[in-house]
């Protein structure tokens, strides 16, 4: 067997992917057992083995695992994976580690799209909803996210170079603008719509069901599966857009695909669980420290760790104030905001403050 070459971290990355997969499986099983009706890991495993229509197991426990917790856990995992992957792609595209769909206004744009579906669904957007049905809300969230990502890119990038300061400031402006739009919609909304909006904003993952999962799940799955094709291009673009072109990357095509996938992932995640910040910034950064910056292992690893992180946050959200629930965004922000500040202070020279 040949010796590992110094500076080649592909083996570390492969080992990391293996560990993360096992950790995700473990956290998912534990998470299935946690809640008002606590189940041991052994019970969870035997219920899983028996299948959703088993009659050998207590019917209540089968229902809790398969109908109540399973869709929620799949949803948490997919949302976490989508947000982490969207963060990593945005950071690669903007060539800096501080981009996050929540921070730079992409999530706010998606939220505006979602809220407009709730408020205008009976009037202006009624024909759209008639065609797309349950997919109307994720679609509008996607369009909102897409519009913000494109605007952000146009503002922050000149001649292939992105100014980090401009990007963060433009993100603040975009977020404020989208929030104002959302505010206007809330102002004109009816009592019932207001309830729906509040429920959706704070909802987190509490309303998860197989039916909801069937709408957004496949979209998030699609992005997670498709995103590794960006790996080579994102690696090259780390050197700069001109350099990526010199290396043979079709830069414009790659950027378009990247923006499309980020908007799709963020739109689907926001549509199902509201705005959950900081997952997209914490996860890629930790992984780059641990296993290197090569995007080919990094993107799948982000999906795995993002899923783990959100499952853990969801478990915390469900247990801290049990039997009530904390909105999951509060947990991720409590962890993520100090982390972001720490990164910001560490990289002050990079962003020219």
């Amino acid at each position, binding site marked *: 067997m040949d010796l590992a070459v110094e*500076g*080649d971290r592909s083996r570390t990355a492969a080992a990391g992917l293996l560990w993360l997969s096992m950790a995700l499986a473990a956290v998912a099983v534990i998470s299935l057992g946690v809640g008002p009706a606590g189940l041991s890991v052994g019970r969870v495993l035997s219920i899983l083995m028996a299948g959703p229509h088993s009659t050998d197991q207590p019917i209540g426990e089968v229902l809790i695992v398969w109908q109540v917790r399973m869709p929620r856990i799949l949803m948490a995992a997919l949302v976490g994976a989508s947000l982490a992957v969207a963060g990593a792609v945005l950071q690669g595209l903007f060539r800096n580690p501080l981009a996050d769909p929540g921070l730079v206004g992409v999530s706010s744009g998606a939220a505006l799209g979602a809220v407009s579906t709730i408020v205008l669904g009976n009037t202006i957007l009624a024909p759209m909803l008639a065609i797309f049905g349950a997919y109307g809300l994720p679609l509008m969230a996607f369009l909102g996210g897409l519009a913000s990502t494109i605007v952000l890119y146009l503002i922050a990038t000149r001649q292939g170079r992105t100014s980090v300061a401009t990007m963060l400031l433009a993100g603040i402006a975009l977020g404020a603008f989208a929030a104002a739009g959302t505010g206007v919609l809330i102002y004109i909304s009816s009592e019932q719509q207001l309830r729906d909006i509040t429920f959706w904003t704070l909802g987190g993952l509490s309303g998860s069901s197989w039916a909801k999962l069937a709408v957004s799940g496949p979209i998030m799955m699609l992005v997670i599966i498709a995103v590794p094709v960006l790996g080579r291009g994102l690696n090259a673009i780390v*050197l700069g857009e001109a350099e990526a*072109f*010199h290396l*043979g990357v079709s*830069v414009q095509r790659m950027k378009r695909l990247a923006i499309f996938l980020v908007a799709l992932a963020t739109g689907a995640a926001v549509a199902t669980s509201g705005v959950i910040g900081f997952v997209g910034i914490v996860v890629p950064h930790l992984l780059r420290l641990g296993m*290197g910056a090569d995007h080919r292992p990094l993107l799948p690893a982000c999906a795995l760790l993002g899923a783990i992180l959100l499952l853990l946050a969801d478990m915390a959200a469900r247990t801290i104030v049990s039997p009530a629930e904390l909105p999951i965004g509060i947990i991720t922000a409590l962890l993520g905001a100090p982390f972001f500040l720490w990164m910001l202070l560490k990289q002050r020279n990079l962003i020219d403050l």
Partner: protein
Amino acid sequence: MFELRDVSVSFGSRPILHGLSTRIEPGVLTVVAGPNGAGKSTVLKVLTGELAPDSGEAFFEGRSLTKMTPAAMAARRAVLPQSAQLSFPFTVLEVVRLGLETRHDLTSDARNQIALKSLERVDLSGFGGRHYQQLSGGEQQRVHLARVLCQLGEPVVDGRPQFIFLDEPTSSLDIRHQISTLEIARGLARAGAGVLAILHDLNLAAAFADRLLVMRAGQLYADGHPREVMTDTLISDVFGIPLRVGHLPTGMPYILPQTLAGMAA
């Protein structure tokens, strides 16, 4: 062979290149020199396909560059940028291996071996595991040279010459590495590759160029062997200073900036 036919480029209303025609041949080390703002970097951008000219056309082996895909171009030519900042923690080996990403025929071990050899060529043996961001500017420049050498592969592949473009490859280097870098460039040209380098140091240009293109205000002012091209008139016409050109016994021209400094004193 690369060919520019009557190429003009403007940024806004400001003309950068007008009516430039030339050919870049394989087997020759071509050096482009000229004052700041003469259009050297723009010529490089047009030749590498990065910038489409406003009028005129750029060709590679008879094909218009606008009709070639980035991947097809990357297989035949490599470009060394002036500098590249990395915002993520890549190791030196990983940066160098980026030059091999399009080579799907290579195993992971083969990539590592080629990358290590390239690092040796640019005098960076043992740097593979270091973080790129922690290197000095000159070391970073040589890391990119190693990367570009990886992308280039052999000077001639399947009987067809490869091309390499170097944008001020010596700008951050000490004198020893300035010379070793240009020796690599000359070696590639001798082995059949086409090499074009933008250089500001006229002494290095005179010492290494087979052909010197001197630009002024978006046009070619002179084109030929440094021995014929580098004259007192050229220096004063193009750079606007009365610097005398001296000659070694071999006939190689040189300039001494000290002679001007002496006059001022």
